C-alpha cells in the first residue's frame, strides 16, 4: 500500500478526523499537505500532516499496527518535504512513541514529560546548533524575542538584563512567520543592542519558539496544546542554557496575548526547577501606554508613523524607513 495525498478527498479527510479522534491526537487544521494510506477496502488506516518543517498529527489505525505502515507514511511525507526544499524535518510525538520514530531515523531534541517529545531527522542537529553558539562569560542571562519589530520595550528588557549580568544572550526567533523578515528583525536587534555591554545576539535556529515546537504561538489563540508546547519549548531552552551556563531568563510581562501569557507562566514554573532564575520585568510604558510590537504594527498599518516611531529606537526607525 502506498501513502498518498488525501487533502482533496472530503471523505478521506472525514475519516482522518475520526482516526485522529480514536487515537487521541489533537487535530490541527493548518496543514500544507495531508498524507494517508488507504487499505484494499478503501478505508483510511494511517494519516499525517506536513506543516512547515514538521510532520504532525500522525496516526495509524489500531488494527494495522505492527505492519510497518508508519515507515511507508513517513517516507512519503519526507519525500514531499525534501522535494519542496525542506530537508530538516521535525516531529512531535508522545513519549511512548519516541522509540518507534528513533527506529526510523529521528533523533530526540527535547521532551516535556510523557506528553511530548520533539525529534529531528538530522543526527547531531541540535547538538551542532548549540556547539556553534557564541559563548559569554561570568553571570549570564538570556532573552528570547521575536522583535517584530524591535521596540524600545525590547531594548529596555535587554538593558535591565545587562544591569545584573556580565553577558546577555539575546535569541531572535528564526521562524519567518512575522510581518518583518528574520533578516530585518535580526538586524534591528543587532543595531538596537550594539551599545549594551555584554549583549550577544543569536538566532533561535529551528529550535526555540519555532513552528515545529510551538505551533500555537503562531496561531494566536489558546488551545489545549499551548501548555504542552510551552513546556517543550522550555525544555529546549533549558538544554541551551545548560550549555551556555545561562542562569537567568528574562521575560517581559504580557498584558495582551493569552498564548504568550501562558508561555511565561510555564517558564516561571519550569525554569527554577532546573536552577534557572526566571525574572519577569514590567513592560516599559511610554505616555501611559505599554510598549508592544503588536501595537507598533497596528499603528504602522493604519499609517500613524509618528506614534509608531515614538515607541521605536532610532536604529529600528532607520531600518523600517529603508524597507518601507
Amino acid at each position, binding site marked *: 500500500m502506498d501513502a498518498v495525498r488525501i487533502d482533496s478527498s472530503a471523505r478521506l479527510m472525514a475519516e482522518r478526523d475520526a482516526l485522529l479522534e480514536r487515537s487521541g491526537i489533537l487535530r490541527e487544521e493548518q496543514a500544507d499537505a495531508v498524507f494517508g494510506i488507504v487499505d484494499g477496502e478503501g478505508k483510511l488506516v494511517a494519516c499525517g500532516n506536513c506543516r512547515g518543517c514538521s510532520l504532525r498529527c500522525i496516526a495509524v489505525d489500531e488494527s494495522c499496527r505492527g505492519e510497518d505502515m508508519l*515507515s*511507508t507514511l*513517513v*517516507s512519503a511525507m*519526507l519525500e514531499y518535504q525534501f522535494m519542496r526544499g525542506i*530537508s530538516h524535518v521535525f516531529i512531535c510525538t508522545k513519549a511512548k512513541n519516541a522509540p518507534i520514530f528513533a527506529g*526510523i*531515523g529521528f533523533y530526540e531534541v527535547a521532551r516535556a514529560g510523557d506528553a511530548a517529545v520533539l525529534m529531528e*531527522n538530522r543526527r547531531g542537529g541540535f547538538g551542532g546548533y548549540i556547539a556553534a553558539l557564541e559563548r559569554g562569560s561570568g553571570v549570564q542571562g538570556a532573552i528570547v524575542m521575536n522583535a517584530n519589530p524591535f521596540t524600545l520595550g525590547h531594548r529596555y528588557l535587554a538593558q535591565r538584563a545587562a544591569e545584573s549580568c556580565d553577558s546577555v544572550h539575546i535569541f531572535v526567533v528564526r521562524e519567518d512567520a512575522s510581518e518583518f523578515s528574520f533578516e530585518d528583525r535580526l538586524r534591528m536587534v543587532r543595531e538596537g543592542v550594539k551599545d549594551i555591554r555584554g549583549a550577544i545576539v543569536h538566532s533561535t535556529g529551528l529550535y526555540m519558539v519555532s513552528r515545529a515546537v510551538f505551533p500555537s504561538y503562531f496561531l494566536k489563540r489558546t488551545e489545549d496544546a499551548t501548555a504542552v508546547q510551552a513546556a517543550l519549548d522550555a525544555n529546549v531552552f533549558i538544554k541551551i542554557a545548560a550549555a551556555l551556563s545561562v542562569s537567568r531568563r528574562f521575560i517581559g510581562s504580557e498584558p495582551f496575548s493569552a498564548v504568550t501569557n501562558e508561555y511565561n507562566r510555564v517558564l516561571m514554573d519550569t525554569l527554577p526547577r532546573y536552577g534557572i532564575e526566571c525574572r519577569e520585568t514590567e513592560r516599559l510604558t511610554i505616555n501611559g501606554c505599554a510598549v508592544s510590537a503588536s501595537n507598533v504594527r497596528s499603528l504602522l498599518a493604519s499609517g500613524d508613523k509618528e506614534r509608531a516611531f515614538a515607541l521605536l529606537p532610532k536604529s529600528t526607525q532607520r531600518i523600517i524607513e529603508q524597507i518601507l
Partner: protein
Amino acid sequence: MQLINRAMAGTLESSDAQISIAPGKDGIVLHIQSTVQNQYGRAIKQSVLDTLSKLGIENAEVDVNDRGALECTLRARVECAAYRSAGIEAGIPWEEM
C-alpha cells in the same frame, strides 16, 4: 561529482534504505542505522563507500537508514541521492555504474 544540496533517496520501508547526503568538508562522514547492523553493518559501509568513491565523491555527510535492503538497492539509493544532491537530472552515465 560536486554535491550542492542536502538530498535524500529511498524509503523507510522494509527491504529498502533511505539515504540522506549533504556536502561535507572532512572526508566522508558516514552514519549507518540498520535493522541488520550486526550481520551486515560492515558490508553496508563497504558498499556505500565504494559507491561514493565510484561517483568521485570525497567529502560528504551521509546518513544511511537501512531496512534490510539488498546491495543493489543500497547502491542505487546512494547513487540517486548523490545525483539529486548534485542537481544532476539528465545525462547520467549509466554504463559507468
